[in-house]
């Protein structure tokens, strides 16, 4: 075995660092999935009847649907009746502020390196933390409130801002959209809601941190972001889960609405437990994310760094309805060991002079499979639509796979669509060159991979970019064969 391979062996067996779990008293739904469970969840959350009806309708739709099989991933289907659809840490009901949040829960986040103490945060990031099925805390509410910005848990939004929720819930991703989105609509338990009023530039990053703690529990959260005309917001999402032998399901929905001249940046650093090095356990990350550029000159930008999950099935998309609207998708997807990722985007050009840009960087190591799947659709009235797609794959070792599935669908002849794709390998000569300057192999790999992913990492807010760089290095250290 060469030295590089040995380092690979040592390093890829490194433990997932967020794999711990804690025991807390939980308020749980019984196992299984049926109408009664949905009623149970809705009652638990003291929801208005229209929302219960909406859930039940979604459930009916879902029952008639089949789990999709078109993606390039292989896995044993989950027994959805063996899951629990609600689990919440018992704490003083609806804490009004951080002081009322159970210190034990705050400690969980401290351990994850996320401080909920507003004074402690250096840079302004307001954060909503979701543990299993519920939001446990939201910071900086008051500061934001002065600007008319609403940032709170989904449950709270249903109670406090029912008109907004009624208007926008399911407006971008209908409850009938797809198998996982419909399931989410039926059983979602919490998530974040954010509303930026007209003309307001949100002064800090808004962020949701998702953590799955309980076993046998699916996490089904919804995030809804509404940016009114001429507003701006940058939103971050992070996530981790304990290391467990059985697979866990995460089926989230994120909807973004962007009014005229508004801009929404949505960044994700996904670090769900990927399974162990033999492919045991790990999160099934089946997520539906979509934004609509509803108004003219609006812009939605998705940036994702996907390092975790056993299986990722995720296509953050943009519907470019407003004239001159812009959609962007920047992605780094890393797979190692037995991970499988099928991820990409959809850019749907409806308005005139709409533009989209796709930059996808896949990195595969170990025995993993990494697929880019992207669609660029130009509708009939979308005059002068422009798309540029760049899909690169980096292979480490020769047991992994990289695949690209671009779909281009053009109904207006004035469209200009460009697609570039490359596949490369980390060269032994690149590593030797670094070694010769005194750089150890694992650091050389980190350097090369971060260089490769730079265009995407540059899109992330500063603090997040540094985290993401470290994460990339950690996921891949030494995986050169």
């Amino acid at each position, binding site marked *: 075995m060469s030295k590089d391979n040995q380092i690979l062996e040592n390093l890829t067996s490194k433990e997932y660092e967020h794999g711990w779990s804690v025991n807390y008293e939980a308020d749980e739904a019984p196992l299984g999935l049926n109408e009664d469970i949905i009623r149970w969840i809705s009652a638990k959350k003291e929801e208005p009847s229209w929302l219960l009806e909406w859930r039940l309708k979604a459930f009916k739709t879902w029952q008639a649907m089949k789990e999709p099989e078109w993606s390039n991933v292989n896995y044993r289907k989950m027994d959805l009746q063996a899951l629990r659809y609600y689990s919440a840490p018992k704490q003083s009901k609806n804490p009004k502020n951080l002081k009322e949040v159970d210190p034990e829960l705050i400690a969980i986040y401290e351990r994850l390196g996320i401080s909920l103490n507003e004074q402690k945060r250096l840079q302004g990031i307001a954060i909503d933390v979701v543990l299993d099925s519920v939001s446990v805390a939201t910071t900086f509410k008051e500061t934001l409130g002065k600007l008319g910005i609403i940032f709170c848990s989904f449950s709270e939004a249903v109670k406090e801002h029912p008109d907004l929720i009624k208007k926008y819930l399911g407006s971008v991703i209908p409850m009938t959209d797809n198998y996982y989105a419909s399931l989410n609509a039926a059983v979602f338990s919490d998530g974040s809601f954010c509303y930026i009023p007209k003309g307001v530039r949100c002064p800090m990053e808004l962020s949701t941190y998702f953590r799955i703690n309980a076993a046998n529990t699916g996490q089904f959260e919804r995030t809804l972001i509404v940016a009114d005309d001429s507003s701006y917001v940058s939103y971050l999402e992070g996530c981790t889960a304990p290391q467990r032998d059985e697979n866990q399901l995460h089926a989230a929905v994120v909807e973004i609405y962007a009014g005229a001249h508004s801009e929404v940046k949505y960044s994700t650093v996904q670090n769900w437990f990927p399974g162990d090095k033999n492919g045991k356990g790990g999160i099934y990350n089946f997520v539906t994310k979509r934004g609509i550029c509803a108004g003219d000159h609006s812009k939605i930008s998705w940036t994702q760094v996907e390092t975790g999950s056993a299986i990722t099935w995720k296509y953050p998309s943009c519907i470019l309805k407003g004239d001159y609207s812009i959609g962007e998708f920047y992605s780094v997807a890393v797979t190692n060991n037995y991970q499988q990722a099928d991820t990409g985007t959809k850019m749907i050009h409806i308005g005139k002079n709409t533009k989209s840009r796709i930059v996808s960087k896949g990195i595969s190591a170990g025995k993993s499979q990494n697929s880019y799947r992207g669609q660029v659709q130009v509708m009939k009235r979308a005059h002068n639509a422009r798309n540029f797609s760049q899909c690169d794959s980096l292979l480490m070792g020769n047991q992994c796979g990289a695949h690209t599935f671009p779909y281009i669908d053009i109904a207006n002849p004035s469209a200009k669509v460009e697609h570039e794709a490359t596949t490369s390998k980390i*060269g032994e000569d690149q590593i*030797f060159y670094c*070694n010769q300057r*005194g*750089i150890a192999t694992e*650091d050389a790999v980190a350097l090369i991979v971060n260089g490769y992913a730079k265009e995407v990492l540059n899109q992330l807010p500063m603090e997040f970019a540094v985290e993401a760089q470290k994460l990339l290095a950690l996921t891949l250290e030494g995986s050169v064969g």
Partner: protein
Amino acid sequence: MLSIKNLHASIEGTPILRGINLEVKAGEVHAIMGPNGSGKSTLASVLAGREEYEVTDGKVLFQGKELLSLSPEDRARKGLFLAFQYPIEIPGVSTTNFLRTALNQVREHRGQEPLDAVKFLSLMKEKMALVEIDQKLLSRSLNEGFSGGEKKRNEIFQMAMLEPVLSILDETDSGLDIDALRIVSNGVNKLKSDKTATIVVTHYQRLLDYIIPDFVHVLYRGRIVKSGTKELALELEEKGYDWIKEEVDSTATI
């Protein structure tokens, strides 16, 4: 400083180095010349620790210690530097970033604190002046799209930053224009001291007008077949290699 004894190395079973002997002392400059394919770059790579080459026999001491069992990065950290004949491109990584990583790892090995951004930048400024390299080049992706000459100049800039004990320059002169050759050579000369040594691999006497060698060796078919002083280089320039090849081939026992 460097003592090579009966070094044999092969690649994929083909012997390339077939008994190299060479002694380099601190303060010396050695030039290695020889026809294409004679094994000059192979020797440089083997000394730097490239894994593809298998050392089948021989011994190398560097600063009195066994060299061949060390990893490439440890050799570098102990002060061995190779300016590549064909520098490698690393997309998305600037020379600055690359060197900062390298220098701090070297410093760590030497038990020194990492340089903070301010100190690092002032060191960069100083060394940039030495080889007259443009700041803009250093913020671009390492070697990506660099011209041949820019790559070579960048190699010597890296050498200046890392302050090696033994520098091996593999055809650093090829690709440099006349002015650049003078500037880069002057840089190399300024970096020399009685504590460092330099091995220059070259095809041309021209370089040796600037970097004056104490010894000149001719490598042919994996062996040093002739050694002399700087006059040997002049003689080669004039007569080529045929006379040496004939000498060797007539007495060869292959």
